């Protein structure tokens, strides 16, 4: 390679190095500009971590009762439907009896009375529409509870993942766990809120009658 060619090559290398240095300089300038922002962000995250830790424990406590709430709503719907069907069965039976009575030879006054009774039965039947309407509202409420439960579970999982990956978060979460870890108090609350209902058959079996 000739001297002039070597010189040209060196000049090119120097240009590249200068460009890199300029790039680094601008990066430092950028870093300098965003440094206060990063500090603020770090402070914000440090403040946020204990709040997230508290949220995690609250979520754990709340999500535990969500399936019960959802089941109770479904149970209310079934109970109201069963009760309404029983009422409907009886009303239809009474209507059939009234029609049978009305087809026999009766005086006008009695026939009128039977007609009035039939109208009243119709009114009761129509009022039973409430069952379907409230059942639809209950179903919607159940769907909302389930949607909230799903989102809370995801948030809860995300908080746990942060705790597993970040030592600082884990330390804060563990520390918070010690602070709120009054197991007796939690057990007491658990007993109050838990649905320990038993059927009449279970009670009879317990009493042996």
């Amino acid at each position, binding site marked *: 390679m000739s001297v002039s060619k070597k010189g040209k090559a060196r000049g090119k290398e120097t240009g590249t190095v200068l460009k890199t240095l300029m790039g680094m300089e601008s990066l430092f300038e950028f870093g300098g500009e965003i440094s206060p922002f990063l500090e603020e962000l770090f402070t914000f995250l440090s403040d946020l971590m204990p709040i997230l830790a508290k949220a995690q424990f609250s979520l754990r406590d709340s999500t535990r009762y969500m399936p019960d709430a959802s089941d109770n709503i479904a149970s209310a719907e079934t109970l109201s*439907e069963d009760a*309404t*069907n029983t009422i*409907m069965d009886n009303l*239809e039976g009474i209507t059939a009896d009234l029609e049978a009575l009305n087809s026999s030879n009766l005086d006008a006054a009695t026939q009128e009375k039977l007609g009035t009774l039939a109208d009243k039965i*119709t009114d009761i*039947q*129509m*009022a*039973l*529409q*409430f*069952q*379907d*309407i409230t*059942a*639809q509202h209950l179903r919607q409420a159940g769907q909302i509870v389930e949607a909230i439960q799903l989102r809370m579970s995801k948030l809860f999982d995300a908080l746990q993942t942060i705790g597993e990956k970040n030592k600082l978060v884990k330390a804060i979460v563990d520390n918070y766990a010690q602070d709120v870890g009054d197991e007796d108090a939690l057990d007491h609350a658990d007993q109050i809120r838990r649905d320990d209902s038993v059927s009449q058959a279970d009670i009879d079996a317990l009493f042996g009658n």
Partner: protein
Amino acid sequence: MEVKTILFVEDSPTMRRIIANSLKRLGYTDIIEAENGVDALDKIEGKTIDLLVTDWNMPEMNGADLVKNIRAMPEYETLPIVMITTRGMKDDVIKAMKLGVNGYVIKPFTPEVLRTKLEAILK
């Protein structure tokens, strides 16, 4: 218009009994009952219906989709259709009209409302 056979579609067992009883009291005795749109289309195969009374919110196939399916059948292009539903928003009513529903009854309803509505669309 003379109505011989009614297709009546409702998923709630309670409402099914209430509406079927109401229809019978109004003199409509030939009623094909179905639980949802799919069940309804199955049950009318090979039969002729003169009136459709349907709920909107149902599993499998809802009332709106059932109406679309029924209206797509050449023999039911002009079939009288009444929707009985809890959906009382203006948008719902407009949607039902656009689908080809002829009468719209909001739950809860009275036998008188049902009678008036049926009489109006069967004129």
